[in-house]
């Protein structure tokens, strides 16, 4: 079927926006990433080079990637583990008030300004807040540089937990509650019901939530910027510094291309993984 004239006209503005504000700038950035950097000059030099990419393999830069991925991975695992119980209650409860409370809380946290949340975290978990005992509890004093990493963990968790939980609610809602009830009525302990029925059925959803959280974490910029205190820096922050401090546009462009490939790679890996592992479960 061909596209009618009216439909083509309706699609034109959005398509123009996508091409002009996403495709063209990224293509230009990709071209720039192969240009040499000339110190003291705005923009890039002439000719072609792979130096901007080769540079990223050196340990000094690889460290940023390692930090980003390590913290992103741990936070995403935690977000899914902590999100599962709430999501399960929200999906299974018979009490309207409980469901509305959880839904309202999660949607509110999704809408609430991230900057407001990060400020609140800094005031609560920081040096003058009421939770300084936590630092002593885990053996990392609030004033030490390592505590910045703890705060980045907390900040990212606040950022992704509502998203993970909302995704997981959808997952649990789509698992037939009759299956759990049937197993329970046959005398299976709740522990067995969870591990042999609910969890295996929820696995594609758990993986999807994990991957979305992971993608959100590794491309986050504000959390390490504010809570990282210069100690914890993500690749996004590295990219910004390349541009703001040394005006090295080609290097920033190369980091951007690598990040883009990684972000798209995560989404692609998720799709392939869920499709191959759970091909039978997903068949309608």
């Amino acid at each position, binding site marked *: 079927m061909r596209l009618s004239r009216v439909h083509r006209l309706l699609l034109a503005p959005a398509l123009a926006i996508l091409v002009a504000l996403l495709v063209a700038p990224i293509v230009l950035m990709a071209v720039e990433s192969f240009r040499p950097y000339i110190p003291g000059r705005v923009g890039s030099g002439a000719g072609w080079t792979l130096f901007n990419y080769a540079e990223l393999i050196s340990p000094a830069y690889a460290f940023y990637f390692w930090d980003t991925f390590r913290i992103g991975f741990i936070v995403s695992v935690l977000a899914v583990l902590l999100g599962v119980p709430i999501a399960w209650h929200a999906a299974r409860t018979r009490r309207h008030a409980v469901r*509305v409370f959880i839904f309202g809380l999660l949607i509110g946290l999704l809408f609430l300004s991230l900057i407001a949340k990060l400020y609140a975290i800094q005031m609560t978990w920081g040096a003058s*807040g009421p939770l300084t005992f936590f630092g002593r509890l885990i053996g990392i004093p609030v004033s030490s540089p390592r505590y910045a990493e703890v705060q980045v963990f907390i900040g990212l968790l606040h950022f992704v937990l509502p998203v993970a939980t909302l995704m997981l609610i959808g997952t649990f809602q789509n698992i037939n509650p009759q299956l759990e009830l049937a197993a329970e009525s046959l005398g299976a302990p709740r522990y067995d019901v969870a591990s042999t029925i609910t969890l295996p059925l929820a696995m594609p959803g758990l993986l999807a939530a994990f991957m979305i959280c992971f993608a959100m974490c590794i491309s986050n910029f504000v959390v390490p910027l504010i809570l990282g205190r210069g100690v914890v820096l993500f690749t996004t922050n590295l990219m910004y510094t390349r541009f703001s401090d040394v005006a090295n546009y080609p290097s920033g462009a190369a980091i951007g291309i690598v990040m883009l490939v990684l972000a798209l790679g995560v989404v692609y890996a998720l799709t392939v993984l869920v499709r191959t592992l759970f091909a039978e479960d997903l068949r309608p």
Partner: protein
Amino acid sequence: MKGASGTRGSPAFVATPAMPAAANWRAAADSLSGALFWLIPAIVVVFLLLPILVAVFLSFDDRDYLGAFPPTAFSLRWYRSFFDNPAYLQGLVTSIELALLSTAVSLVAGTAAAIALAGTRWRGRHGLEALFLSPRLVPTVVIGFSILGFASALHIFDAFTRLVMGHVIITIPFTIRAALASLVGIRRNLVEAATSLGASPWQAFLDVTLPLAKTGIIAGGLLAFVLSFDEVAVSLFLADAFNQTLPIVLVAEMRTNLNLTVAAIATAFTALTVVIVVFLDRTVGLDNVIGKGLYGR
């Protein structure tokens, strides 16, 4: 069925001394996992809400320095100090103008595209939809950085224009998705009924389709506005000294000192969020925002 629901919440499997050790272990694991299933949500809710309550509490602190928690006297001084600082007010004005303009652009272009995508059976529509939603997958720093380079290649040096460019592209996936979700949900026979009764396609669209899709489109616009209003990474690349958005001013403030004016602003944001949630509950219903799933009651 009645018996099955009666066993919920009470241990269905009780260990007795006659049982082997493995059964004891299993019963213990069962009650432990049951307890954790209530304990973890409670901890998570406290974890998520406590900082916000602390910030709200601190915003009424009367001390002019950042003292130990809790505050000893209360006042509205930090709310007044917001209005005394022109940088905040200027930032707020820029942020509102920017969010309104970019939401308007992405709402109009996004809704138009969604109408076409929902109305056609053209084979390329799924690919096009994926393209329209793809800006969500691109890290916001990459969007800010690439638009900065693109704008300077086109000799666009006006920071506000650049900001609008960046904010339109980050918000458009959300307006398209929200409009598409509400348009696809409309039953085709309602539109067909209108046209069979003599309405023109245009009339049917205005009188049937649009009113039914209205709430979804408005919700998408609301989300776009909030996203644009809170954006930091894109704005940091595209703004200049004369066009600072409120988030940029706040981030700069938070990195230098922990001014309690930010607590007052955070409290105002929290109040606004509560209003949004109550509004969504009253208009669409929170159940419908999230959906009830395949086995929903």
